[in-house]
């Protein structure tokens, strides 16, 4: 195979894995922002919490990686319900600015607490044997972990797509995102729906956080560092859209990976440039509502 093609495939592969991480972590944020218009900048903190729970479970309690991911997801999902009911609910009618500030404050507090308990040094997570090493796909070998990430992503996308498009609840969510007042007047319990989607979104974020450890290492600043990235994926994809989040995650994941390979000195320039261009042309993102 020509060198160029090999590099291209590598970039695509790594970009795809990165995109899966972005999608899994951001999809919850997109749906909740599209559904309730609530700007939750603590979303990154939920992801980070998930990561640290996985670290503790695998290192201190010897639980395997994959079950840890599930436990972390469920735990964060349940805790997020408490946050939503107790705190966020009061601010649904508040201005964007107030929501931004409250959730950023929560994120700061979370970072401080996790720094206190886990320290600032990046944490890693022990992987089971079958996730280590490379997997040979014929023309090249790729890291098994990334293949795993892509596979998990594909499964989650299918499940979410099915849930969104084919089930009753999915239809209700789509209806409420499209026109909340209409949905309420037709008898859909939007409040309950929101709590559910919020919990699910936070759980997914936690799983994403756990998956990210092997890719980037985990430090307490994860919460804010990657937050901007999640916001970009959500804004570029369009609020409340599964398709949009996926497309945005793919575009950003692949172009960023390629960009960093070809022009490492440009850093994140490509991502921000894409964001600006997309938003200037279509302010509501790829598949956002007008």
């Amino acid at each position: 195979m020509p060198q160029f093609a090999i590099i291209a495939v590598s970039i695509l592969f790594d970009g795809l894995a990165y995109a899966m991480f972005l999608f899994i972590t951001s999809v919850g944020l997109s749906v909740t922002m599209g559904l309730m218009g609530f700007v939750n900048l603590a979303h990154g903190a939920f992801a980070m919490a998930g990561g640290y729970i996985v670290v503790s479970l695998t290192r201190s309690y010897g639980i395997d990686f994959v079950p840890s991911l599930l436990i972390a997801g469920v735990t964060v999902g349940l805790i997020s319900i408490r946050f939503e009911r107790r705190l966020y609910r009061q601010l649904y009618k508040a201005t964007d600015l107030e929501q931004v500030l409250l959730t950023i404050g929560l994120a700061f507090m979370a970072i401080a607490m996790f720094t206190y308990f886990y320290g600032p040094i990046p944490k890693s997570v022990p992987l089971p044997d079958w996730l280590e090493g490379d997997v040979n796909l014929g023309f090249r070998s790729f890291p098994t972990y990334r293949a795993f990430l892509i596979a998990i992503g594909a499964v989650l996308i299918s499940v979410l797509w099915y849930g969104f498009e084919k089930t009753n609840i999915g239809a209700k969510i789509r209806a409420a995102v499209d026109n909340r007042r209409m949905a309420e007047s037709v008898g859909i319990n939007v409040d309950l729906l929101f709590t559910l989607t919020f919990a699910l979104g936070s759980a997914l974020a936690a799983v994403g956080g756990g998956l990210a450890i092997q890719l980037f290492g985990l430090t307490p600043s994860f919460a804010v560092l990657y937050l901007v990235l999640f916001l970009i994926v959500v804004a570029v994809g369009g609020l409340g859209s599964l398709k949009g989040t996926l497309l945005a995650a793919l575009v950003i994941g692949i172009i960023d990976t390629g960009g960093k390979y070809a022009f490492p000195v440009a850093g994140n320039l490509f991502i921000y440039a894409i964001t600006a261009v997309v938003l200037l042309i279509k302010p509501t993102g790829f598949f956002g509502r007008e």
Partner: protein
Amino acid sequence: MAEARARAADYLVRRHYFRLSEALPWLLMIAAFFLFPNRMTFGSQVLIMVLFALSLDLILGYAGIVTLGHAAFFGVGAYTVALASMLLDWSEPISGIIAGGLLAGLVGAAVGWFILRYRGLTLLMLTIAFAAMLQESGNLRSDITGGYDGLPGLMFDPVLGTFQYDLYGHTNYWYVFGVLAVIFYFVRRIIYSPFGQALTGIRENVRRMHAIGSPVHRRLVAVYAISAAIAGVAGGLFTQTNAYVTLTVFDFDNSAKVLVMLILGGTGRLYGPFLGAAVYMVLEDYFSKLSPTFWQLGIGLLLVLTVLFARRGLLGLAEDARGLFKRGDSAPSAPRRMVWKPEHWNSLGMSALDGAVIGFIAGFAINMKQVEFMTTFVTSAPARALIFTLGGAAVAAGINAVYLLVTSRTSVEEQTS
């Protein structure tokens, strides 16, 4: 009728007159010089942040535009001064900051023209993206900009040709003070002008503004440019007083920081930026030296509390307090008692539950960290867990009870109606 008319006209005509109370912040800034003569380098940075926050208030507090990218203009000003000094040997300070301000203003006008058509998340992301792109572009030419390591050892001429910089930063302080005073004068004029009124109109009801013929977009671009220019001046001052600049001036953190300062002090109030920036900088200086983690927890908590209980910032709280006292002068109102309703008990119960969970987690975590005095004080682990859990519940319920007592007292009439 005629009297009401005269009174109304009078109020509007006098509104922009200087009030005696306005002298207070300025006197405090002057007093600071004599009270803390060896903290003046810090003092200059506080005043620079005041200026930066003031620029943000113009668009956020008055025009209602939420931005998380204002550091972009601060950075433009900072680097204009730095590069002019380095590449053009232009080290006269006052013309330097004027140039920095002008350039930042032009950039602000250009960017604003494009992005101020949008609002909400779209606008927010565009402001973040722009600041980040400037930063990354600066890094591409780190040979000129010094990248994240920066450009150290910049040299500047004495202010007005006579005031030489000194080791204690005294000259710097008065220099920044002077610039702040001059710019504040202009900002104050703008706020009380018909243009400033129109900005408030845009913030209060943009639909109405369109319907009465206001060129909303043009106005917003204009104020955005002015705000950018002032931020640029602040940036230029930053470079001059530090004799150093790095690409970190463009950091998202800085845009967020100045936003927090403004919220803390109170938006849309002339002196909000003064109070907010001063309080923030002083707290940060003290606490982050003590423990950076603790500072981060503190500022996070402060933000949460501000949004929940002090939405209009410290100045807003002060106004409320004054209102409370005023009410005391008028006829005494009916005594207020606390009546415990089911929803109050519910709220207490929920707080207790939250407190218990948090306490339990805290105990668990402290166990993990083997905090010394905790482990020696109560040796058995289950006992510790119990104490933390119950303690957490008690503390949370207690705080909630106090809050309810303060806010939910109803007067006898309201109870019996």
